[in-house]
């Protein structure tokens, strides 16, 4: 699992781990049932505090992206996210707000934005 942490980002490190892990799962680079590195190992690899990694893993587990099996480690969930549809949409709504605001700021209109989203979706599909 290759993650890139940048402390100067302004985004807290645990959040960076969570986001990147979610991206990897979403783009298929982490398949369901695959084991995530143990907290210690990932902490050493990224050179960050193990508590930070633990927090990231806890959040990923809470979000349903991964599951912790007793004693044997953390694995990517088999089924998709167990969140209810409404909750999932709420998460995405936050992202959408940011995207829409930025588009407004850059004076890109809605049709162009939708075309862009379709294009990125196609690109991700083709990578699988």
């Amino acid at each position, binding site marked *: 699992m290759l993650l890139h*942490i940048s402390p100067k980002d302004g985004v807290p490190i*645990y959040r960076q781990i969570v986001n990147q892990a979610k991206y990897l799962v979403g783009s298929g680079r982490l398949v369901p049932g695959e084991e995530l590195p143990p907290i210690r190992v990932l*902490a050493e690899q990224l050179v*960050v*505090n*193990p508590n930070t990694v633990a927090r990231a893993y806890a959040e990923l587990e809470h979000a349903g992206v991964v599951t912790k099996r007793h004693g044997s480690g953390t694995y990517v969930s088999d089924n998709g996210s167990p969140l209810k549809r409404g909750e999932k949409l709420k998460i995405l709504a936050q992202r959408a707000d940011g995207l829409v605001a930025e588009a407004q700021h850059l004076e890109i209109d809605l049709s162009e934005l939708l075309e862009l989203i379709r294009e990125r979706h196609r690109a991700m599909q083709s990578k699988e």
Partner: protein
Amino acid sequence: MNMPTSSPHEPVIAINGLSRRFKSKLALETVSLAVERGQVFGLVGANGAGKTTLIKHVLGLLKAESGFVRVFGRDPVAEPVAVLSRVGFLSEDRDLPGWMRVDELIRYTRAFHRAWDSAYAERLREQFQLDPAARIKQLSRGELAKAGLLVALAHRPELLVLDEPSSGLDPVVRREMLEAIVRTVADEGRTVFFSSHLLDEIERVSDRVAMMAKGRVVLQGRLDEILESHFRLTLRFPTPPPAQPKLAGALHLTGGGLEWTALCNGARGELEAAAAVLGARIVEDTPASLDEIFLARMGGERSISDQLQPKVK
């Protein structure tokens, strides 16, 4: 040597109201902080802020003039053996005897600690690529720091105290040192207390952070809380304000012309209200990184000291 272990809920380092004066200069001013077991505590500050002085108090090399210092519940000046046998220390100037060889250093330091793990020491030595026959005065800066870290880690101390572990080191060695520190933390119950002026490494590995400036602790708390409570707001004014606008809740204001960026420390509502009063619009709202927070706080200190001192014409 039968030392009763301290209770698990007692802070490993407890400093309360510590002050210290060197001749006329006040090096520490009523410093209070606590380091809990298993924590990584980062001490941030510019050069001369008092970090090394504070660390020397923790090790018992300086006596507390006022206030007290307790490590594992004991006074390090009164009970040096009980404290120092459970502490691994890397000094800022890495003063190891230059005439010793690396293997002699390891053998010598081993004699002082019953809990020394020779296999672990050997693993570290190989990992750090230290030639056992090399003399310490021939080692490069990075190797010297690694040698110092080796003898600090090899007896698996409950508390690891590091004074500027990465100062003067190239990125490769810096990473090695940090990796070794992270590995120490991952072992259960080990506490790390380190000082640095390199904020990105503080941000990576610390649980709690204390910022020092001119001998005082200006900010202290959990790292994630600090990062979450400080953020950067960029405000756009309709007309350029005449002078630097005064905004409540803003720690530090930079910019010019129509756009000004304020670093806010949690009093978001106040800042927004003040901005609204002046007719400014928020155009950007991002989390602040630790060095921005630090610079803003330090800048604040400097302006406070300017206000206290009369301007000399």
